[in-house]
């Protein structure tokens, strides 16, 4: 077990930011902490890192109790904070070297590690740049390089892709997967469910400081009754047709907004086939049709009754 958290409670006055959290991260995982803004992700991370005092709970990292003085634990952790935390007065190279130097004292080893980190985040052409001259995406990559250059066994990334263009975002996600393949265990927090679905092997969903569900994405989707969602682009919809769709065996909800007919079904099969058969036999004129399996948003929606998205 890489990280083990039991009964963690953190209050800010009356607000319970983390409410009796249990969490276990296994070696080799990319563990996703998914939750909307204010759900307690960062607070939980800061408790795990022994930055925050907490009201109750027990935290072990690498099997040992975590504390501010646990240097043998800390030396193997890499952390990428939610906000960019670099020195504007230092170049890209110097920033990475500075933070790496807090972990690695040997100069030649450090030089190698810093170069590797720069190559890893693709900042090779920007080594001598000051952070002010970097675009938002590149700055995020620098922020990441500063946290991981010392090749930690456990990497914690707190929303590393916030406000990043899609290209940089993909590069970052690929990088995280690569770090994981090279042996690092990763804790990844985000409120973008697509990202979490894309890279995480196990996911914990948080809301208001409470754990709502934990599991692989398949397991999470199994937890809810919702099955597929079929969207049909049609320009006219008669009531009789509407009635047919609404009375289909597995239908949960059917909505038409004048352009798209959105039909949600419970788990079950051949929904799409039935819809297509009906549309063809009644010569309904339609544009596109597509079907989706439930997303983590649907999981969140079904459990909490609200959307995960902002």
């Amino acid at each position, binding site marked *: 077990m890489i990280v083990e958290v039991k009964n963690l409670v953190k209050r*800010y006055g009356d607000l319970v930011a983390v409410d009796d959290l249990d969490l276990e991260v296994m070696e080799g995982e990319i563990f996703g902490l998914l939750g909307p803004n204010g759900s307690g992700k960062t607070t939980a991370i*800061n408790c795990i*890192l*022994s*930055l*925050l*005092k907490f009201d109750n709970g027990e935290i072990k990292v690498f099997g040992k109790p975590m504390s*501010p*003085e646990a*240097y*043998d634990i*800390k*030396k193997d*952790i890499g*952390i990428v*904070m939610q*906000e*960019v*935390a*670099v*020195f504007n*007065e*230092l170049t890209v190279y*110097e920033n990475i*070297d*500075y*933070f790496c*130097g*807090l*972990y690695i*004292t040997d100069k030649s080893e450090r030089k190698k590690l810093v170069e590797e980190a720069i190559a890893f985040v693709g900042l090779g052409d920007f080594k001598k740049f000051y952070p002010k001259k970097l675009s938002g995406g590149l700055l995020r990559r620098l922020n990441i390089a*500063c*946290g991981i250059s010392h090749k930690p066994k456990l990497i914690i990334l707190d929303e590393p892709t916030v406000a990043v263009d899609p290209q940089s975002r993909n590069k970052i996600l690929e990088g995280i997967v690569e770090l994981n393949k090279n042996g690092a265990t990763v804790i990844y927090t985000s409120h973008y469910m697509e990202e979490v679905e894309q890279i995480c092997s196990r996911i914990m969903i948080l809301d208001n400081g409470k754990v709502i569900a934990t599991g692989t994405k398949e397991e999470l989707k199994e937890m809810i009754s919702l099955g597929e969602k079929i969207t049909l682009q049609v320009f006219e919809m008669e009531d009789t047709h509407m009635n047919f769709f609404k009375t289909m065996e597995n239908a949960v909800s059917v909505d038409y907004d004048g352009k798209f007919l959105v039909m949600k079904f419970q788990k079950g099969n051949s929904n799409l086939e039935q819809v297509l058969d009906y549309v063809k036999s009644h010569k309904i004129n339609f544009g596109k049709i597509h079907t989706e399996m439930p997303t983590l948003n649907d999981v969140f929606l079904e459990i909490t009754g609200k959307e995960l998205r902002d």
Partner: protein
Amino acid sequence: MFYHIFKYRLKVLLRSKEMIFWTLLFPIALSIFFNLAFSGLRNQDSFNIINIAFVDNANDPNFSEAINSVSEGEDRIFNMIRTDLENAEKLLENDEISGIIVSDENITLTVNSSGINQSIIKSFIDQYKQVTSTATRILSQNPQAAADLPAEIATRISYTKSDPMGKSELDIVLNYFYALIAMTCFYGGFFGVEEINQIQANLSKRAARVNVAPIHKLKSFIYSLSASALIQLIEITVFLTFLIFVLGVKFGENMGLVILTTFIGSLTGISFGSFIGAVVKGNENTKTGVLIGVTMIGSFLSGMMFGEMKYIVQTNAPILSYLNPINLLGDAFYSLYIYDTYNRYYTNIAGLLVFTIIFSISTYLIIRRRKYASI
């Protein structure tokens, strides 16, 4: 690890334009401004010999001799008339004299305003008292020494006569520059504020990064602070050199002590900044705002904007001049320049050290905590 943190801290600070501006360029600019503003004043070497009245009720020959010796000759300090109290008070009322010295069981000074003249008379009396009390102590411990006493007093007094208070030396604007260099030492507080910001995880994310690294928090703070202290000491030396060699500000003979004083003052300043950084709530701008504000008030009370202020505080609220570290520092420079004895200087330095210790301990008590209630 020390070298790593120290080296990068130096780089960061030296490249931080705002920091260098406040801690070096701003004081230099102010000193140039002072110099321009005072150039008229400084050139007139019309240092007046101070008119005083002496009411000798005690017939103490020692004091009488002492006051005579500084009221005779070309380089005399006082124009002294011996008279009775009634007449003396009249003279004082008509502003014909700056002060009345009355010698009874005690030696007392009566003035009706405050200013440089008054403070010089006062310092003369203080010096005399100091010499005689030393003499009394020696006597009580070693009665045989009585024979040497008059000689001792005589040398001390003659010292007073030839000391820099001679008219050509007294520079009435010096105090402004002493307050300014004291202010500059206190602007070392910018480094203190910044260092606290770099180590308290609830103040900056960079600090949070350092806090999660496998390094002792206080150690990394001390390493980082050493870089700040080095830069501040270099800057204050540059500033002092500028004041002495470019603007011709006089600091007296004892250069070693003057430099030591700037260094002690700088440490007080840095610890003061750290204290503000640790104690004041709010962001960095609020803290530097408080730092500048407090330093400015302190500088004002010690006479940086308006020279008489120092004496007004000294006469009306003497306690305030001891509670104002900037005044202690400015006064330490002043005492080094104007007195031959070090009592007043040491009192000032002791005060500064007390402040430094208070600031440092309070800072320590706050930053030694390694977990935060809120981030």
